[in-house]
Structures are given as C-alpha cells and as structure tokens.
C-alpha cells in the first residue's frame, strides 16, 4: 500500500469527505439515559440538573447527558452534503485511533483490510497509522467541526477507498 496515495500533499481548500480532524468530541447518550434541566445555584451560576423527566424546548430539542471521547475524527459525509455551510449543516464523523494501540490479533485483520467496520488509514500525515471505526459513526454540528483544525485530506484514490469501505460496511455486497 503506497502511503502517499491515500493523502493529498496539502489540505483541500474546503472541508471534504476523507478529511482528518483534530480531536473533537464524539460520543452518544450516557447509559442509563439521563435527562438534564437548567438550574441555578447561589450567585446565579448556571448548572445542569439531572432530571427524570424529558423537558424539551418548543422545537422538541432538549438536553441529555452524553459520554464519549475527544478524539481524532474522519469526515464521512460526501462533499455535496457539506459544501454549503448553513445553520443546520451536519457532518458525519467516524472516530479514528492509532493502530499501534491494538493488540496484534486485532490490528492485523485491519491492516489486511479484512474488516468491514474497521478501515485502515495508513500514514495519516502528522499522525501515523490509524484506523477508522465505522461502528461509531455519528454526526456533529458543522459549527463544531469548523472550530476544529483539519489535519489531512484524502486523495481521490483515498476517497474512493473510503466510499468502497462504506458500501461494504452497509451492504455486505460483492460487486
């Protein structure tokens, strides 16, 4: 596998599918599911109180406790979904981590590209050999993504490989 073919020499001009982001909060609702409500303590400080009752705002949006990591992420959304930033723009992200942190028995099948859900990311600029965990795909508000630094952009070949991984992961079909 030629490392240089996976990444562009320089960042693409705009946020793109296959971009690697600096550590960003990625997670899901805490278990057991815990709702939050606004509260105040002395001197008017704002606090979030645990609540047994779901208390959304007028739009049906509310707060709940989340858990996760602040971890590097891979942009999975297609360019066409993220090329027009708007108030409601969402970006699909997969968390990525170092291959070296895994035991040999877990690392080797990923490097050999035998796993649908775990995509190897060899030679990520500034980071090294990583893998993306598609089991933990989630979305982030575009505003949060824009506050983060982009570290690397995938080459055209890399993006095609990512798209192939997504097809394999979601369909398990042989073409």
């Amino acid at each position, binding site marked *: 596998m030629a490392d240089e073919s996976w990444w562009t020499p320089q960042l693409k001009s705009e946020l793109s599918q296959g971009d690697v982001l600096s550590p960003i909060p*990625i*997670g*899901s609702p805490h278990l057991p599911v815990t709702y939050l409500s606004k509260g105040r303590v002395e001197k008017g400080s704002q606090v979030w109180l645990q609540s047994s009752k779901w208390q959304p705002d007028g739009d049906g949006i509310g707060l709940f406790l989340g*858990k*996760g*990591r602040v*971890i590097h992420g891979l942009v999975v959304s297609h360019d*066409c979904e993220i090329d027009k930033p708007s108030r409601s723009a969402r970006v699909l992200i997969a*968390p*990525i*981590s170092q291959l070296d942190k*895994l*035991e040999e*028995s*877990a690392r080797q*099948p990923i490097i050999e590209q*035998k*796993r*649908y*859900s*775990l995509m190897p990311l060899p030679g990520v600029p500034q980071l090294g050999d990583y893998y993306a*965990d598609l*089991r*933990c795909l*989630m979305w982030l508000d575009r505003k949060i993504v824009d506050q983060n630094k982009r570290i690397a952009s995938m080459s055209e070949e890399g993006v095609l490989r990512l798209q192939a991984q997504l097809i*394999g992961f979601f*369909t*398990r*079909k*042989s*073409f």
Partner: protein
Amino acid sequence: MSEFENYWPAAWQVDGLIVKAPVHRPIKQRSVKRDKSWKVVLTTSVLSIGMAVLNFSIPTGALGVSSTRIESAEGHRYARSSSSEVPPGYWPRLVAALRSAPTLPDDNSSNDPEPLV
C-alpha cells in the same frame, strides 16, 4: 390508495418521487384544435409566441401578472440539471445491482477491538 404508496420501494418511479405539473399539456391542446379553425390556429399561435416571450425575454417582476407558468418551467429545468438531484432511474438501477450482487459471508469479529466510543 395510501398517499404514501409511491414511496414504497417497489413503486419507485423512473423520474423519482417529485410530483410536478405537466408543463407540456397546453401545447397538446393547441395541436388538437389546430385542425378545426384557422382562427383558433391564429389565436393559439399568438398566445404561444406571447408565452415564449414571457418565458425567455421579460423579467417577470415587471409584468404585474401571474408568473406561475414561468416558475413551473424554471423548476422543471432545475430538476433536470441540478447535480444534487437524484438522476432518473438511479434507485431502481442501484436496487437491481444490489439484488444481483452476492452477499458476502459475515466477517470474523471475534478479535475486533472495543468500539472507540
């Protein structure tokens, strides 16, 4: 008939699921009437030329008349050319490709690492 029937996977339409006004229908009516009377022909021709002028030459905002017909035509053109629109036949072709593609055996996940989050 359920109003959602068109959204069933088996009922996907070639041109997608957007229901739009048949913008060419008035032209059909004109061609039927043409054989009956030269007056109708003349009137229709004048109207056709007028509509063509409205469509392509005059800013609609300055006319003070309904621009429904013009907007319809513009919307139709946009749907055909926009790269963000799913092209005709895309879903049936994709479904057919998926249906004919063999499903791969499940991979061995026994050694997979714990999910990252």
